[in-house]
């Protein structure tokens, strides 16, 4: 019996390790190929480890240089800056807009609350793409095409975020809030001193969702940004791959630059991300 259990443990652990290895190979391979000299990966059998570690792909990708008297670069560093700026602004504004709203929908009594809530839930089923074409025309009239405001604004209509915050805010005991009201605390004070500390963990989770969502967004920035110097990283990488697809090592370096910041943010905060994901799935 114990023997059988040991065999089973070895098989199960082995399979999990194998699955993890297969899952991580593409990411590890992305990094190793990005350090190979140009053309080194186009061999059979495909090399997994660089014979000689080289930084030339990163140099070519990131550093502006003169070619035949004209300045040239892939505009990856500016795109990295754009992506960071947009993601930070989108996250901060998103939190400012949706955390108080989610709390209000959970705990503050006001006329029309239930009806608005129903409308919001109904709004969840509308795919964003339906709004994109008219939004583009509206933004063109408003002069927002090719601006960061144009990239950020549609993402601020965070129905999911409001409902997500509301779900957690529902757990705050009413007695706590009423006691503070009896002590003469203003509603703003209650929100700041009682509600916000209680909602801190899910605010971190939501911030992660918003940041990663903005960082990885592709279709809308692709539509609204027309000038290369305004591109976000995914749009810039998408443009490079459609033109320089043959340069494998260079493309891997571009992918590393795009995925690394996200993984560096995700890994230390993964606990918040995963708990948030489960909070969303057990509702109802």
């Amino acid at each position: 019996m114990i023997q059988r259990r040991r065999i089973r443990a070895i098989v199960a652990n082995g399979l999990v390790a194998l699955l993890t290895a297969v899952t991580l190979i593409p990411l590890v391979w992305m990094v190793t190929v990005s350090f190979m000299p140009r053309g080194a990966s186009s061999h059979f059998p495909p090399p997994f480890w660089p014979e000689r570690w080289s930084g030339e792909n990163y140099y070519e990708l990131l550093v502006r240089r003169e070619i035949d008297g004209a300045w040239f670069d892939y505009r990856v560093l500016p795109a990295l800056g754009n992506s960071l700026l947009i993601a930070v602004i989108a996250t901060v504004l998103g939190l400012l807009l949706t955390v108080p709203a989610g709390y209000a929908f959970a705990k503050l009594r006001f006329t029309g609350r239930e009806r608005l809530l129903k409308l919001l839930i109904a709004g969840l089923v509308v795919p964003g793409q339906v709004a994109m074409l008219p939004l583009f025309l509206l933004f063109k009239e408003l002069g927002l095409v090719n601006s960061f405001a144009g990239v950020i604004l549609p993402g601020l209509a965070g129905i999911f975020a409001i409902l997500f915050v509301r779900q957690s805010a529902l757990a705050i005991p009413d007695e706590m809030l009423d006691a503070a009201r009896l002590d003469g605390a203003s509603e703003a004070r209650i929100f700041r001193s009682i509600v916000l500390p209680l909602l801190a963990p899910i605010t971190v989770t939501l911030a992660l969702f918003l940041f990663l969502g903005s960082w990885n967004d592709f279709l809308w920035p692709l539509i609204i940004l027309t000038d290369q110097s305004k591109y976000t990283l995914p749009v810039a990488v998408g443009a490079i791959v459609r033109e320089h697809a043959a340069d494998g090592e260079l493309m891997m370096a571009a992918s590393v630059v795009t995925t690394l910041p996200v993984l560096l943010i995700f890994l230390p905060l993964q606990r918040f991300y995963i708990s948030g994901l489960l909070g969303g799935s057990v509702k109802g």
Partner: protein
Amino acid sequence: MTRQERTAWLFTAPVLAIIAAMLVLPVTLALALSLTDYSIYALADWSNVRFVGLGNFAELLRTALFWRALANTALFAALGVPMAIGASLGAALLLHDTTVRWKPLWRVALFAPYVTSVVATAVVWRFLLNTRFGLINYALGWLSLPPVDWLGDPHASIPAILLFVTWKIFGYNMIVFTAALSSVPQDLMEAARLDGASRWGRFRHVTLPAIGPTLLLASVMSVAGFLQIFAEPYVMTLGGPAQSTVTVLYFMFDEGFKWWNLGQASAVALILFILILAITFVETRIGKRNQWL
């Protein structure tokens, strides 16, 4: 107005205004736009717009590429949902086994692809799937299977993209399923084991009924997700080979922002919206009838 009410409006009005401006208004306009012949000429001057009724929809039904895009998208969903859900469930069952150690570590590693950018990892998979120098064909060679022209053969292109999509997203539902699995009643499991039920029997009659609702919900959401595939073919195949990976959204993007037929493109977006609504509705009805939800 009470103090509470004033605060509530102060807290909700800004985001509600944005939702009205960024979602409600544009969706209403999309309806209007789909009934016009808005094209590149109208982009220069609004007076060139004419009302065409349901003309865009009639035109779409006569467009072969639109039907092709619909069929491709249906294939993406029909193959992709079982593939992705199956991978998630398999990984979750494996991770749920009591003998497995270091679970949090495996969980994070398996989830990592989900948080990466689709564009960046699609680029990586383009090279993994390379016919001559890709790791995948190399692995096939190991198993003495012939190489596949993954992204060059119209019959292999959709499965190839689905391999990538499954790799990228299975971690998400894996986490959801692991949570559902830990809610499977242990006493029932023990009773089934004592009654001599086989491993498959226990899975079929104890585990599956317990996680059924979660499975169904995940499938419904996956269908909606697969119907909205865009970035993967945009980066990996440019819609080819032989238009085998042109999806509905890809078609909409080209129609709208390459040819500037925004009226026509709006009609495409609305058809996709209606399809998603209809399929979701039917799925939840089936789920309710069988009491899975």
